[in-house]
C-alpha cells in the first residue's frame, strides 16, 4: 500500500499537469454559466453603475432633467452628522451582537452536548426566531418594549420596577433594543453551527484532557474554543455583513429614531431615497456602503485563504 502511493500520486500529477490537454477534452461551459451571469452580474453591475451615475446628480427621482453636481453629494455626506452616527451604530451593533451571539451560541451548544432533558423543545424555541420574518415580529416587539408593555410589566412583577423605562422611546436604550432583537433572531444559527462544529472535535483529545485532570472550564477554554475557531471566524464575517445589511428591524421597530439613535446606513439610504426623494444623495450613500461591503468581501477571501493554508 505504502509503496504504491507515490506512484499513484505521480500518475495523478502527470494527469493534471498538461492542463491544456485535459481541459480541451471538456466540453465548453460558457453557455452553462451565462444565465447566472446575465441574471446576477448583469442586473447587479448594471444597478451599481447606474447608482454611481445617480450619485453625481441632484435628483428627486422624477424630474427628467436632473442637475449634475459632481462630487457634491459625497462632500455633503462627509459633513453629515447622521451619516457618521449611522456608521458608529453599525460598528457598535456588529461588535455587541457578534460577541453576545457567539457567547450564547457556544453556551447553548455546550449545554446541549451535555444531554439535557427536553433538549428538542429548547432547540425549537431557540431556532424558531431564525425562521420568523423580522417584519412579522416587529409589531410584537413594539408592543413588548412599549412603556406599558410586557417587559416593563414583568420587571414590575419581579420587583425591579426601577428598571422599567420607555425602551424604544429614549435614545439611550433604543439601539440596545435593536441589538437584543437581532440577537434573539440569530442565536439559533450560531448555536446550530457551533453544535455541528463541536461534534467534529476529536473525542480522544477530550478524553485525554480528562485523564490529565482538566475540568469543564479548562476543557472549554483550551480544547473546545480553539476547536471551533473556523466557525467563529465565519460567524464574525456573517455578523459584519449582517450589520451592514441591517434594515428591517430598525426601520420597523424604531423607524431609525428617536433622534436618529437607531439610524443605520440601510435605513438612512431608504429614508433619503424613498420618503425624502433625495435620490442622488441616497445613491452616494449607497456607493459608500457598496465600497465598504466590497472591502469586507475581499477581507473575507483573504481570511478564507489563510484558513485553508492552515488546514
Amino acid at each position, binding site marked *: 500500500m505504502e509503496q504504491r502511493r507515490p506512484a499513484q500520486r505521480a500518475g495523478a500529477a502527470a494527469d493534471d499537469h498538461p492542463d491544456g490537454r485535459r481541459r480541451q477534452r471538456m466540453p465548453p461551459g460558457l453557455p*452553462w454559466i451565462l444565465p*447566472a451571469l446575465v441574471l446576477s452580474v448583469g442586473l447587479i453591475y448594471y444597478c451599481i453603475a447606474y447608482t454611481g451615475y445617480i450619485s453625481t446628480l441632484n435628483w428627486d427621482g422624477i424630474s427628467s432633467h436632473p442637475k449634475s453636481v459632481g462630487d457634491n453629494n459625497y462632500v455633503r455626506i462627509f459633513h453629515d452628522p447622521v451619516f457618521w452616527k449611522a456608521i458608529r451604530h453599525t460598528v457598535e451593533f456588529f461588535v455587541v451582537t457578534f460577541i453576545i451571539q457567539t457567547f450564547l451560541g457556544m453556551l447553548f451548544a455546550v449545554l446541549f452536548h451535555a*444531554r439535557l432533558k427536553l433538549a428538542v423543545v429548547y432547540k425549537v424555541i431557540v431556532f424558531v*426566531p431564525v425562521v420568523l420574518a423580522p417584519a412579522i415580529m416587529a409589531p410584537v416587539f413594539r408592543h413588548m418594549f412599549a412603556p406599558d408593555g*410586557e417587559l416593563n410589566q414583568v420587571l414590575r412583577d419581579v420587583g425591579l420596577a426601577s428598571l422599567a423605562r420607555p425602551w424604544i422611546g429614549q435614545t439611550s436604550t433604543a439601539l440596545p433594543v435593536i441589538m437584543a432583537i437581532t440577537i434573539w433572531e440569530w442565536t439559533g444559527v450560531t448555536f*446550530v453551527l457551533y453544535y455541528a462544529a463541536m461534534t467534529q472535535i476529536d473525542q480522544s483529545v477530550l478524553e485525554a484532557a480528562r485523564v490529565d485532570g482538566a475540568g469543564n472550564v479548562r476543557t472549554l477554554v483550551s480544547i473546545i474554543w480553539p476547536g471551533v475557531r473556523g466557525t467563529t471566524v465565519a460567524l464574525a464575517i456573517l455578523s459584519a455583513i449582517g450589520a451592514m*445589511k441591517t434594515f428591517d428591524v430598525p426601520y420597523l421597530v424604531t423607524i431609525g429614531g428617536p433622534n436618529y439613535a437607531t439610524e443605520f446606513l440601510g435605513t438612512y439610504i431608504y429614508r433619503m431615497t424613498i420618503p425624502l426623494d433625495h435620490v442622488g444623495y441616497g445613491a452616494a450613500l449607497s456607493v459608500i456602503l457598496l465600497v465598504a461591503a*466590497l472591502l469586507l468581501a475581499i477581507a473575507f477571501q483573504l481570511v478564507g485563504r489563510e484558513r485553508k493554508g492552515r488546514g
Partner: protein
Amino acid sequence: MLETRTWKGRTILQVVATLLVLPYLFPLIVMVKGSLAGQGWHNFQAVLKVPGLGRFFVNSIVIAAGVIVLVYIVTMMAAYGFAKLHIAFREVYFWLLLACLTLPEVVLLAPLFTTALHLKLYNTYWAVILPLAALQVPFAVLLTRNFLNGLPNELFEAARVDGANSFRGFVYLVIPLTRPIAAAVFIFTLIGAWNDYLMPLVFLQTTHMQTITLVPQFFVGEFSNDQTKILASAVITAIPEVVAYLCLQGLFERGLSAGAIK
C-alpha cells in the same frame, strides 16, 4: 462535551439552560397572549374575515416559488459549468459573481426603481423576483460549485466516453447527484424570499400584489392601531413558517446554517 456525572451537576445545567431559553420564548408568549387579549378568539375571526388576507399568502407563495425555481435552474447550470466544463478565464467570471456576495439590497433601490418603472415591471411579481434571485444566486453557486468539485471528474468523463453530451451529463448526473446541496439552497432561498421586506415594500404598491411581510402594516391601517388584531395577524402569518420548520427541522437547520456561512 461537559461532564456531569452527579445529579447536582445535571440539575444545575438544566436550570441554567432553562433560564437561558426563557428570553427566547418571551416574545412568542407576548405575541400569542397579546393576540388573545380583549376579545379573545374574536380577534382571529375579525382578522380572518378581512377580505384579501389570503391574497397576501398567494403572493408570497408565487414570489417564493418564482425565486426558488429561477435560482435553482440558474445555479445548477452555472455550478456545472464552473466545476466540470471548460471555460476560458473561469475564475474571472467566478470572481465577478462572488463580488456580489456581500451586497446589501438597499443599494439597488434607486436604479431598480427607475428601471422597473421604465420597463413597466413596477407592481408586478417580476420586480421582486428578479432582484431577489439575482442576490441569492452568487452564494448558491459558490455552495453548489464546491459540492460538485467534490465529485470525481472520472464520473463525467465516463459519461462522455459513453456518448453523453453535456446536456445529458447535466440531466443524468448533476441534477440527481446534487440533491443534498440543492436542499440547502432550497431552504435558504425560501427563507430569504419569504421573509424579505424591503423589495415588496418598494416595488409592490397595491395590496392586491403585496406579500405577507407587509401584512402588519396593512392591518395597522385596517384596524386603526388595534394592537390585539395586529398581533393576531402576526400569529396567523407566523404559523405557516413555524409549521414548515417543525415538519422539516433537520433540513431547515442544515440549510440555514449552510446559508449563513457566507
